[in-house]
């Protein structure tokens, strides 16, 4: 890693004819090797994430209905209320704050202020760990309480207006009135354990409009791919957050030990991990957009 330290010492030994060649001393694009490579790694990573998110979009476009995010993501720790999108907004703020503390760490690095670097990096790590904890909570709710897995998705939406009936075709009454459903209404099929296997409740609906008017159909699972897409994409992002936290911790410990102060290059290593950390925040902007807002 010593080569990241820029040295112009060789330049005096250069021959006239070698002037056009890069000897590693002068930087192309006025950025050090390490920073440049971090940028290009992030470009490739951006394509990976873009591929995942575009796959999500393509599959969503191919389905007649799709689970409604403000119905699916409405849990909040310690409250029993239905608070759509509130918790993921909190998670977004955690990442924004950790991005801001990261910028401060980089700035203190430029001033060669070791205490400042370590302090702001510590807050950044705290933010990353908090985000991971929030994600663990979100996944727990989905897997444990709502029975979403890679190939099971109890969240769906009705394709047309109808009325709930029982297995014999008799209308289900609630407070003496039939239970009606409207097109695009969201539903969640609750699950229960039976013989050690998860069974989803059986519900039936008699459609009063649309292609199935007059027919009684079982309320089925929603689009199957939803769970796999959600867990893979947020999981891949969460893994980036996790590895970011690990590298931030290593670099913070190195900074505490005085390694980067000795290099006298304005804590460039902190700047590089900063680029990565902002990218993780950047990806979350788009994950937030496609999974929770659209």
């Amino acid at each position, binding site marked *: 890693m010593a080569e990241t330290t820029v040295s112009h010492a060789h330049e005096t030994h250069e021959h006239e004819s070698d002037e056009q060649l890069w000897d590693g001393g002068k930087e192309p*694009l*006025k*950025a050090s090797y390490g920073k*440049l490579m971090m*940028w*290009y790694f*992030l*470009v490739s990573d*951006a*394509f990976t994430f*873009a*591929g995942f998110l*575009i*796959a999500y*979009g*393509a*599959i*969503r*476009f*191919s*389905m*007649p209905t799709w689970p*409604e995010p*403000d119905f699916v993501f409405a849990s909040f720790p310690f409250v029993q209320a239905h608070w*759509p*999108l509130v918790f993921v*907004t909190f998670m*977004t*703020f955690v990442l*924004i*704050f950790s*991005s*801001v503390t*990261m*910028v*401060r760490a*980089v*700035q203190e690095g*430029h*001033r060669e202020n070791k205490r400042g670097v370590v302090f702001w990096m510590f807050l950044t790590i705290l933010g990353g760990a908090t985000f991971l904890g929030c994600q663990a909570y979100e996944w727990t709710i989905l897997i444990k309480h709502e029975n979403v897995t890679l190939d099971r998705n109890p969240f769906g939406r009705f394709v047309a207006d109808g009325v709930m009936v029982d297995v014999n075709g008799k209308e289900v009454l609630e407070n003496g009135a039939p239970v009606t459903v409207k097109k*695009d209404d969201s539903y969640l099929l609750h699950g229960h354990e039976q013989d050690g296997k998860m069974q989803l409740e059986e519900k039936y609906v008699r459609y009063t409009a649309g292609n199935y008017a007059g027919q009684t159909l079982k309320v089925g699972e929603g689009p199957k791919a939803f769970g796999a897409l959600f867990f893979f994409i947020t999981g891949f992002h969460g893994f980036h957050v996790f590895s970011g936290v690990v590298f931030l911790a290593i670099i913070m410990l190195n900074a505490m030990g005085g390694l980067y102060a000795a290099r006298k290059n304005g804590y460039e290593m902190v700047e590089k991990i*900063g*680029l990565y950390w*902002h*990218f993780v*925040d*950047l990806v979350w*902007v*788009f994950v*937030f*957009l496609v999974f*929770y*807002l*659209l």
Partner: protein
Amino acid sequence: MSAHQSYEDQKKLVFYGLKLLGIITIVEVVFALFAKGHIIPSVTFGKDGGFGQALYMLAMIGASLYKAYFIVFFFMHMAGEVRGLVMTVLLPMTLLIWAIIAFFHEGGRWGAARQGIKQKNEEVVQPIPAAGKPTGYLIPGAIYRG
């Protein structure tokens, strides 16, 4: 970080960024809840499957792209890098424009194909009673002869 900025200016930019990203996020979420009928139940243009939803989605994508621009140019200091570096990072991203158009179109086709197969499976075929002598072709003669 550009050299001409003083330390105080740099700190100001950070808190400006915090305010900007925070406010855009809150506006996005409140607008999402509004457009999907969580604030006024009768307002649901955000999920009407038509023009209102398209407009809603465009607004959300625009706000997110602005957040992305701010993070890349000011938090990642892309604004302070040389033009060549900016271009080598941003130009490849334009490939995604076609990827999005092509794959979303493809997704629509998958849906249409699946719908077509379902319709064919549910179709009730009335067998035509055989009358007279067999004509000899399972498929129409014109197609058979090419």
